[in-house]
């Protein structure tokens, strides 16, 4: 694989996707500590929000240690070079949250929908573009559909005004060939001035391999997470990806040595749940289940005396999509009932 001379913008997820393994309990001070260190290491984009995006504070997903607004007001003014982004999932967050984030100084908004439901993002993408934000469409669980179908949805987001569209492997299920096909197809067919991005999960340990495939297929932005802190087995570990890209002659503008210090000295010690490929996160990747379900399934398994891998496999069989955390307890109760009848 020859990536020599390619450029890629890296986007850190530890303070948004990393909120899942931290049960949304990172404090504003911790966020400032991590974000300033990432900024000093030259990471250009850093996402800061509840794990389920703006407005995610809920019984369903978990109440965070501080509000989105408190996090953003703490972090944004401290950035010297890095830009702060926010995630918004229509159906959970609204344009009111988007306006709030903009007011806090957020200039990159990522509007996320299930890969087949892009038309629910119209209000939010239109407003983001109108406010002249860097407006990104984020198509989740992209493994569930073919490149041709994904393109139709990407074109809707492009039509609303998004300037970048992501192939999002929320379940960490995709193999490098899938990534090549999805990213390549979008790159070929979308307008030339619309960027393509890739967001991976490390559930099958393919975060790096998939991200390289994405860059080769034309992705201009790639998400990763310092120390891999993200849902499931985490996101593509950013310091590892930077090391590999530099070996391959790809420019990132990130100081790898500083970044590995952030991972080792700040983020690993912070982790309350050690993010790794365990049998549950491996099950997510193998069965194609939304990575954020991990800790919810572990808790339901413990509460109802079930095996968490069984719950996850059942959630995959039911074709659940991102945001359906409420199904986890429901499925556990069903399984317990069925078990009692046997």
């Amino acid at each position, binding site marked *: 694989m020859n990536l020599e001379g390619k450029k890629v913008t890296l986007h850190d997820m530890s303070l948004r996707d990393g909120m899942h393994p931290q049960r949304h309990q990172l404090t504003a001070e911790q966020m400032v500590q991590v974000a300033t260190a990432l900024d000093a290491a030259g990471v250009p984009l850093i996402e800061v929000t509840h794990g389920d995006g703006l407005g995610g504070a809920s019984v369903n997903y978990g109440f965070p240690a501080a509000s989105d607004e408190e996090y953003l007001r703490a972090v944004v003014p401290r950035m010297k070079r890095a830009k702060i982004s926010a995630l918004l999932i229509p159906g*959970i967050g*609204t344009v009111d949250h988007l306006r709030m984030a903009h007011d806090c100084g957020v200039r990159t908004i990522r509007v996320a929908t*299930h890969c087949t439901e892009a038309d629910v993002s119209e209000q939010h993408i239109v407003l983001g573009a109108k406010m002249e934000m860097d407006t990104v469409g984020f198509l989740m669980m992209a493994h569930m559909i073919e490149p041709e179908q994904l393109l139709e949805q990407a074109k809707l987001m492009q039509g609303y005004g998004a300037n970048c569209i992501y192939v999002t492997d929320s379940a960490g299920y995709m193999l490098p060939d899938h990534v090549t096909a999805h990213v390549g197809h979008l790159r070929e067919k979308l307008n030339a001035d619309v960027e393509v991005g890739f967001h991976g999960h490390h559930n099958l340990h393919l975060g790096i391999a998939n991200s390289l495939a994405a860059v080769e297929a034309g992705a201009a932005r790639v998400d990763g997470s310092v120390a891999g802190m993200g849902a499931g087995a985490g996101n593509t570990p950013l310091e590892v990806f930077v090391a590999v890209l530099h070996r391959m002659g790809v420019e990132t503008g990130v100081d790898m040595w500083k970044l590995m210090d952030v991972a080792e000295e700040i983020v690993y010690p912070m982790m309350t749940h050690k993010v790794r490929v365990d049998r549950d996160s491996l099950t997510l990747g193998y069965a194609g289940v939304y990575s954020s379900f991990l800790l919810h399934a572990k808790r339901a398994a413990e509460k109802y005396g079930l095996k968490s891998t069984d719950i996850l496999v059942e959630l995959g069989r039911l074709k659940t999509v991102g945001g359906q955390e*409420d*199904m986890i307890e*429901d499925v556990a109760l069903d399984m317990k009932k069925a078990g009692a009848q046997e």
Partner: protein
Amino acid sequence: MTTKVKAAIIGSGNIGTDLLYKALRSDVIEPVWMVGIDPDSEGLKRAKELGLKTTADGVQGMEPHIVDDKVRIAWDATSAYVHESNNELVKKYGVKMVDLTPAAIGPFCVPPVNLQEMVGRAVQNVNMVTCGGQATIPMVAAVSRVQPVEYAEIIATVSSKSAGPGTRKNIDEFTRTTAKGVEVVGGADRGKAIIIINPAEPPLMMRDTIHCLTKDAPKEQEIIESAQQMIAEVQKYVPGYSLKNGPVFDGNRVSFFMEVEGLGDFLPKYAGNLDIMTAAGLRTAELIAEEIQRAEAA
């Protein structure tokens, strides 16, 4: 025998057409007009075959006939954008409006919770909140009538096929209006609503999760009884409304996991979200009709 009260259905899409089939079975209401904007719409064709007068020129098309045809009640199943002008027009002729759009000009109505109260107030326009609101607010009210609820959150999951273009284009209306209904009608101090659209095939049945956080420790037995009574009330007009799991009591959290199967009149059975709207809209109109009959008999 009392004569049935005549009514018009504005909007010939999925909701309007499903409502038509339900209204034809009513003992107190007779649907006489179906108003659309597309002459080729399936809804208008069916209405015509079933003996209703139809127009494809919007409410203006019906306006000259409102008085002669004794239209007393109208349902609006169009969109929030045009509801206000539709309402202004029929209001001139003393027509009562049951609003199935999220426009929410009038007070919210969730039949098993506040329908009687609504009719007593003789309001001209009542709003049916949202499908998710109709499916969940009764359960919030079932808890809040037992003890104070500080926070209630509902998660409505609907199949892709049952989420129409109106809902999709303005999904924020759903979350805002439903959350407000959870507070105003459900009786929670603070409300939150989440909607998920799932594309699985075959389409999944509408499901709803309701989480209430009570101020003090939940009175389990009373809540269970109150919930059972409430479910029985909803089942009077939506027989497929059922408690799948729960209530789960976990500290101050009380959770219900519901499933809503539709009657399958015009919309498929999995579209319980649309069915609960049309059924609630009909039930509301029937109570208004009975009120009209009583006033005329007196």
